[in-house]
């Protein structure tokens, strides 16, 4: 059997789904961050796969590279925020953080 693009996409989709589930259900802010990383990875896999199967160039990889960099930046900032949050509240439980409540 030939592994086609849709195989990769199914994996990507599942990865995305699991990441989303992590984001939604986890109460720990760090865990939520992990979910975000999963979702990002799912996207990157998709990018690379499409460029591999459809266009054949380096574009997808380069975008993926940018995505990785973005993820790194995001992780750094987000973790800094989480740390500040923890410092302020002694907790990283997302249920407690309801400052944006209407």
């Amino acid at each position, binding site marked *: 059997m030939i592994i086609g693009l849709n195989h990769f996409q199914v994996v990507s989709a599942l990865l995305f789904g699991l990441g989303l589930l992590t*984001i939604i259900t986890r109460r720990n802010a760090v865990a939520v961050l992990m979910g975000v990383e999963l979702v990002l990875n799912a996207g990157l896999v998709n990018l690379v796969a499409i460029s591999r199967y459809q266009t054949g160039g380096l574009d997808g990889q380069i975008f993926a590279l940018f995505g990785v960099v973005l993820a790194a930046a995001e992780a750094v900032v987000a973790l800094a925020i989480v740390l500040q949050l923890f410092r302020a509240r002694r907790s990283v439980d997302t249920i407690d953080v*309801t400052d944006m*409540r209407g």
Partner: protein
Amino acid sequence: MELQTFNTLWLIPLFPLLGAAYAGLLGKRIHRRYGELAVSLPTVIMPWISFAVAVSAVVTLAQAGPEVALYNRLWTWIGVDWMQADMAFLVDRLSAVMILVVTFVGSLIHVYSLGYMKGDPGYWRFFAYLNLFMFSMLVLVLGDNFLLMFVGWEGVGLCSYLLISYYYRERDKAAAGMKAFIVNRVGDFGFTLGVFLLFWGLAAANSPSYNPSIQATTAAPVVKRASAKPDPAKLAEHVAFQASWGLAGAPCRSHQALGRASTLGGHAQGHHVEGHATTSLAFRHVERLLEDPVKREGLLSQNVLGLSLVTLVGLLLFLGATGKSAQIPLYVWLPDAMAGPTPVSALIHAATMVTAGVYMLSRLHFLMALTPVAMTVVATVGALTAFFAATIGLFQYDIKKVLAYSTVSQLGFMFVAVGSGAFWVAIFHLMTHAFFKACLFLGSGSVIMGCHHEQDMRLMGGLRKLMPVTAITYFISSAAIAGFPLFSGFFSKDEILWKAFDTGNVILPGGGFVLWLLAAVAALMTSFYMFRSYYMTFSGEYRGGHAHEAHGHDEAHGAHGHLPRESPKTMTIVLGILAALALAGGYVGLPHLWHLPNLFEHWLAPVFEGSAHTLKWAGYGHGLEWGLMITSILIAFAGFFAARWLYRDHRNPTPQKILDSDRRLVRGVHRWVFNKYYVDELYQKTVIQPTLVLSRALSIFDTGFIDAIVNLVGLIGRLFSMLQGWIDRTFIDGLVNLVGDTVMNAGRALRRVQTGRLQAYVYSLVAGSLLMVVAAWLMAA
């Protein structure tokens, strides 16, 4: 009349004005820092400078010949179209007398005040007012037209108000000032109306001489009215009326230009101006106009409300004079005016301001001479005032009140002279009166100061020994006012009596005799009450000094300190000078009878020349004149001896007996006269109270009726809009509110969605994506 430019005339009123500004604006601070003299010396010197300038002006005038007047035009004050009033000063022989009297007596009284006001907390204020008064009085005298005279006229009224209310902490004294001002305003009402009437009457009288060529250019404003009521005669009248005084527009401007040239250019041009300037409120222009028989007839033929216009003008102007000069019916303010400091009483309420009415009518002699009715009224009112004021004066105990009523009475004499047509005599008496009455007042001031501000003569007595200078000067002045032979008052008063008897200008039944009789009786009473006051004050033993008795036993030398003492030098010297003038001032106007030159009449003759030919005299012989003169001498002595008999040394019990009499008639008369015939109360009841009631009624009308209507309209509007509002609220607003409430409730519900929880948002994101996909799928299907 020829005008000679004299460019320093304006300095005469200027100096006192400077003094007033100095003391008024800086005086308080200077007083505090540098003491009294720093305030008073400049202000005392100012009138003297004015006097010096006035002397120089009068000397120039005297050298210039009889028909010349000095003229100094500063600027056009009110110049609107053909009406023009200049800021211009004029000195003719009449105003020359006035400025000399005013500046000289005024300056003396300033000097006197140095001593009298010493230690007064309002020192600066007093001198500021006094200087301001000098300024106003000089403007009054020097003003060359009605309006400028009115500036001075009201200015002296204001200063009089300020000075009467000088001791403003005492309500009564403040009220006296207010009374003076308001009563004077009644007179001003007459004065202004008289001026208006005269102005437009002259305009109409002047009309037949109009130049038709300028009709087209100047007749504009009133033509319109004429065409509104198409009446050819009226139209013509209006056109004429406009044109004559209506050298309007360009001609008026050229006149101004010429006027300006005259101030720069001197005599010849000044004379040239006379030809053009027929359109102002200047006295000399009016006089010139009336010299033309045609125009005079034009004025005399006019009637207003059934009265001759000239008569009405004369009466209205006389109303003004009665206000300022305290004649019936407006004399009531003058006795109250004694609330002011005594130098003020001397200067304003005896020597100068109150004579303004006499001056004004004399100034308008050419007009007064045209109207026998007004002359009669003037003379009669003058005589009655002289008589009634004298009767009140008989019973007064306040030394200043005696002098006040005597002033009213003497002013009455002057009006008798004016009404009789003897204008120069009025001015003559004005002058001598200024000397002796100022002296009397200042003497009384000296007495009052000596007696520690006691004014009741019953608490004086015996002052002759304690205050010899005051006593002597007071006696001389009393002799002068009573008309002792060879004293100044004798010449002037005798002349008045004679002229009143001799006059042909009044239309009373019995002619001048009635006037003479009233005036003679008044003279008798004058002599009596003046010496009464002299003897009550200066003879016998000192009766004052409760203080003396109260403290005398404790302190041996203290008693002496409480006895009256002679006043300081500044005051006694002034008294001396004035007494000398009271003694000798009359020699400038010796009677014809004695075949001696009458300098005063001669001096004033050119001024009153214009009216001389319209005045009529009965022409009684010398024998009668001798007889009257002797009568008046007898009268003077009769009064003197009666007073001496009754009041000398306070020994004669008769006055007290009369006062204690039980007879109703005596008591009634006494109370009636003592209370000034209840005139004040009469005015209170008939004028002041109705005015107040009216004002209150109108005020209530204003808020209760007019404003109520406004508010009612507002209320109706509000009721209507309330109805509207109800409809609005219930129906229209209901709908709007429904929408609003829905939105609000929805918002409130949706608010819960915004939980602030991170995952909830992601959750809804996911759900939303799902929904969108489902929706897209359904739509695609």
